[in-house]
């Protein structure tokens, strides 16, 4: 039984054809790599002096570590503030009062339509020039990240709350809770748990976006690596190492998100839950698409019928 429906279990002819294609693809790939490698070698990119500083000179590693710490610091601040802002905006958008709903909705839509770089430059350039308040690079970066990711997180939370079974809100109202209590005590805690994988994915996006700080002089990983590059004149090697660091950190976070998602699915059934990929594919279109993407397998029957008994 083949593991994909797009092609049958291979017979002898197909096995030969697949082997030929595989070999051809590998040869083509290796040829491309070899071509690039020879060109690089001609330009001396494989010389030890371009690579050894990363191993031999401790100062280089120290600089990289400082940069990574600065990146993580900015991302941590931004994540906390964005969570707070996002929760407030989401609650506003879900409110029954139109005078809360419309402004919150407007703010979210505007913030999501603007490029993150515009927001960062706004705090870094516009504030000093217009209001005379100098905003440090770190806080320009954090404020920009907070505003933008706050809007995205607001949509994630809103999708999470909308994906909860209607019975939750109804039951909470039936036992006499006020609207704000319904939100605070019943809906939000469940929504947070449901959207934890999506939140971790957003953290990955946040980490990647934090590199924009180098454009305003914030000494994050990208900026300090620029210093290394200028001193040692080895841009390829430096940025390769930086890319490797980012890939490692982000892969670890993505793996964590997948683990959390799998654990949610095991504990709470295949109910409405926001998957890791829904962040990028569905959420930007608003809650409806996210709910559709995450809640495709709603079980038939009254809510709670497929749940494990919860204390």
């Amino acid at each position: 039984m083949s593991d994909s429906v797009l092609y049958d279990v291979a017979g002898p002819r197909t096995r030969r054809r697949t082997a030929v294609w595989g070999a051809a693809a590998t040869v083509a790939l290796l040829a491309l790599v070899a071509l690039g490698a020879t060109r690089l070698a001609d330009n001396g990119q494989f010389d030890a002096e371009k690579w050894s500083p990363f191993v031999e000179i401790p100062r280089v590693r120290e600089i990289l570590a400082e940069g990574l710490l600065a990146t993580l610091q900015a991302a941590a601040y931004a994540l906390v503030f964005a969570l707070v802002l996002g929760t407030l905006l989401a609650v506003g958008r879900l409110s029954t009062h139109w005078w809360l709903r419309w402004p919150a909705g407007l703010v979210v839509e505007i913030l999501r339509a603007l490029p993150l770089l515009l927001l960062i430059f706004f705090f870094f350039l516009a504030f000093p020039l217009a209001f005379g308040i100098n905003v440090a690079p770190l806080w320009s970066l954090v404020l920009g990240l907070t505003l933008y990711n706050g809007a995205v997180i607001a949509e994630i939370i809103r999708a999470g709350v909308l994906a909860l079974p209607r019975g939750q809100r109804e039951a909470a109202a039936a036992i006499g809770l006020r609207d704000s209590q319904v939100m605070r005590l019943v809906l939000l805690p469940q929504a947070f748990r449901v959207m934890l994988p999506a939140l971790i994915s957003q953290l990955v996006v946040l980490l990647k976006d934090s590199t924009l700080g180098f454009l305003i002089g914030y000494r994050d990983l990208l900026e300090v690596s620029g210093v290394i590059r200028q001193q040692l004149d080895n841009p390829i090697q430096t940025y390769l190492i930086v890319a490797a660091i980012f890939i490692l950190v982000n892969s670890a976070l993505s793996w964590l998100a997948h683990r959390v998602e799998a654990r949610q699915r095991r504990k709470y059934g295949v109910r409405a839950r926001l998957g890791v990929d829904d962040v990028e594919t569905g959420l930007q279109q608003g809650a409806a698409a996210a709910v559709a993407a995450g809640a495709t397998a709603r079980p038939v029957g009254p809510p709670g019928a497929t749940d494990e008994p919860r204390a």
Partner: protein
Amino acid sequence: MEAVIQNVDVLASAFWVTLQLALIGAVGALVVGTLIASMRVSPVPPLRWFGAAYVQIVRNTPLTVVLFMAAFGLPEVGVVVSFFSFAAIGLTVYTAAFVAEAVRSGINAVPVGQAEAARSIGLTFPQTMGLVILPQAIRSVIPPLGSIMIALLKNTSVAAAVGVAEAMQTTAGLANRFGNQVLEIFAIVGLIYAALALTLSFLFRLVERRLAVSR
């Protein structure tokens, strides 16, 4: 406000560069991304590994790092082109990974019977993909593709990092020159970006209504 009115031509040409970057990046990303998605489901193992590795690596790398590697690395390999082209290549490579993931989810959403029927009438893998699966797959993921394209439009602002004179770069320059009207400059530029994003979103909704297959 006068600063904006006097420099309308500068802003217009800057936004034209932004649009060009976005357009080239979009077309390139769609082509490359669909290719990568096909590679990920193909029966040839090396292609599968390459597709998976590509997506995993590029999705976890910041766009700025990708642009830097394009701008600094490609000349060393012998590809020397303008900053604009480096930015276009970097944006294409970066966005293609996201397009690949979206298209792959679309491929998985096509009913199994379609692929089985294609196999049973003897279509080869390329024929199955090209004639049966991909047309349906892409039509079912138009909303996510739309949001990826809007993100691409906003990501063109990062090309300012590699010296492309697009809208963000020009805005910063104007803000520095006309410090007393910086709020108006930012407001106008923000409005234009928002208008572009809204237009794109509206266009995709049109396309979706005419072409989409909901599953």
